[in-house]
């Protein structure tokens, strides 16, 4: 599964995208898995209320299932316009 990071999430984790082998069933499981890896992940995901997530390019919440998902993206609240 491709995991993408944008804006300050990208900066804190230090890379824009990576391929992750995971059996996480939901976004929240994936977050927990990533946090256990390294301090920079733990820091980036320390407050998920400050984060937004998209699964296969659709905004969703952290309880969203990951079955069949190809791409998960984490980023701060958007500031377009």
């Amino acid at each position, binding site marked *: 599964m491709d995991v993408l990071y944008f804006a*300050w999430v990208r900066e804190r984790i230090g890379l824009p995208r990576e391929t992750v082998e995971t059996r996480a069933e939901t976004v929240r499981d994936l977050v927990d898995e990533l946090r256990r890896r390294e301090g920079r992940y733990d820091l980036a995901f320390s407050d998920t209320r400050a984060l937004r997530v998209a699964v296969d*390019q659709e905004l969703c919440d952290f309880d969203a299932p990951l079955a069949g998902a190809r791409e998960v993206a984490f980023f*701060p609240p*958007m500031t377009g316009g």
Partner: protein
Amino acid sequence: MDIRVQESAFDLGAETNAFAARQRGMGAIVTFTGVVRDLDDAPLRHMQIEHYPGMTERALRKIAEDAAERWPLGDALIIHRHGRLAPDDLIMMVATAARHRRDAFEAAMFLMDYLKSRAPFWKKEETAHGAAWVAAQQVDEDALEVWEMPSASRTRSGFS
């Protein structure tokens, strides 16, 4: 419906004229343009706009389709830049065409409100003091609530 995400600048006047010229029977055309503005505390050197290629176009198209479902629009246009911008550069524009002015105005406001908080763009501002990501504002999130109200209550309150 015309959705463009691009790094290059666009010509607001030429886009507005082209949009108006391709309408038929539409009495009302509204445009909104967002401009990079200076900061209150320190002069802005530049703004960097990051986006999520692939998702951005989908998200903008969905917002425009939602608008076209809610209002009888003749047409809608969204252009949004990414990359490096300077103060007074144009960031983006939307245009809407409808038979009646209220529909064109409301649809343009709707496009802007959703584009602001639901399209995957992130802005970083750089001044002499350093660079900082622009924080999303609660007022922009709150702006979406009015569109989730039943339209009758918006009408009663004079919105429509």
